[in-house]
């Protein structure tokens, strides 16, 4: 049996990759994808715990997380489209009117 810690390690690595992606990519859309990676890391964690603790609740939580992820993507894409209309760009560093 695979130790739980492997799963936790996997999800942590995934989370970190997503985190790095959020921090380094210029493209807004890719950053959004990276956030999805982070959320998936959470899901992996939950499912693994669910398995190892024999509790179904964790799977429900994953269900909610997926829902929220979908909602976020919908809103996020809406905002990005709106922003793209105004600026004609999806590079994050172009969005810096508000600062200091």
């Amino acid at each position: 049996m695979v130790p739980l810690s492997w799963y936790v390690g996997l999800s942590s690595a995934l989370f970190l990759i997503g985190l790095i992606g959020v921090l380094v990519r210029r493209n807004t859309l890719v950053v959004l994808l990276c956030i999805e990676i982070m959320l998936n890391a959470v899901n992996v964690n939950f499912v693994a715990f669910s398995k190892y603790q024999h509790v179904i609740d964790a799977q429900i939580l994953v269900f909610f997380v997926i829902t929220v992820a979908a909602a976020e993507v919908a809103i996020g894409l809406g905002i990005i489209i709106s922003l793209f209309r105004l600026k004609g760009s999806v590079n994050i560093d172009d969005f810096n009117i508000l600062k200091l």
Partner: protein
Amino acid sequence: MSFSLVNILGTMPEIYLTFFGCVILILDTMIPNEKRSWLAYFTIASLIFAMIASYGLNGKGLPLYQGLYIIDPFSNFFKMIIYIAAIITVLFSLPYLDREDIHIGEYYAFILFSTVGMMVMVSAGDLITLFLGIELMSLCFYVMVGLKKGSHRSVEASFKYFLLGAFSAAIFLFGISFLYGATGTETISGIAAFVANPGSLKPMILLGIVLTLVGFAFKISAAPFHMWTPDVYEGAPTVVTGFMSTASKIAAFGVFLRVFWVSFSADKVDWNLLIVILSILSMLVGNLVALRQTNIKRMLAYSSIGHAGYASMALLQPNRESLFALMFYVFVYMFMTLGAFGIVLMLRKSGEEGEDISDLVGLHKRHPIAAFTMLVFMFSLAGIPPFGGFLAKFYVFFAVIHAGYAWLAVVGIVFAAIGAFYYLRIVMLMYMKDPESSVVFNASSMGRIGLLLTAGMTVFLGVYPTPFVEYIKSSLAIFIP
């Protein structure tokens, strides 16, 4: 698994609001443009209706849905604040939306939905409900911040808020997953038992605590998770800023408090340090950077960061003093901050919002009452008696000293003194200089009612807070007897 109707009844206020929100969505498509103000009245009415419904549930400490949702006086108190904040926001919105050309009926629906989200937050009995509440609220705000669609700043603010919000939500969820993994439950009270006796899983719990803390700190905009605050506050339509800076923050405080005090109180020594760091950093950043701001909304944003620092000092010790301090603080904070934003959103400069600090110059000459109201808010925010802000600060320091963190109180004091400067600067500009720009103060009758309410309460809470103190005392009685 038993399921009783009580569960439904207990959540009736939320259901009402959701229902009314949907009604507004439908009404919006039906009523003509000129009658749009009726939507505002309808919103206020529905909020008051829900408020009365919530009040009816007061005093019943009910865990609903098998402990996933808690109706107790504590959450009710926060709900009341949120209702009031929402009502005042709607009072301010009516003229503002017209002027800013935001003719979107969904706005009022979003106000109601976000209110539901906050209510869910403060009543949440488990972390996932809590998370959903946060998301509900946040999604509404993401949209509301970007409502000034023609404005680069507004949409940019919306984007920034969204992306960082999603980022922090992911971190928060990751934290929940660790907590869940360590304890096997996600209910707030369930976690507490494991935190008290973590065994070898302690590192995971610690990680969970830190990660959830980040999520909360983001919502209350405590440094170093505050970075979105100034940008978003500045870019957002001012009514939304006012609502965000008060209601969402207060709801976040309520739930922050509940999670940390109930779930993690056994591990207090560990997270106390984090809170201390958070509050010091927040006070530092908030009070210092506000000194250099030229945009009043930005300045108020930094001020709200500073206030988050003060308020979070009251989170250190789960006892009656701290609880009271926090509750009183957010109560006063709501009125004074909302009022300050109210003044800002009523200032117009040649068709735009007068949100530069220089627009306030000489306000006293033109609009003495507006200036005086602003003076009240500013002194109250600075924590000068006899305004409510003083007692709020007082109780926080009271709690901090009671918790044994006198040195932290000293730090807080130093920053309070520094912070007083930028509030004073506003007063100074309003009163001691001659007007330069052609700013007009454009208050509708509803706006005036809103200002009267906020200013009046700010003064009243400083001079004779007794009825509210009694109310707060009764609210915290169940939480900490």
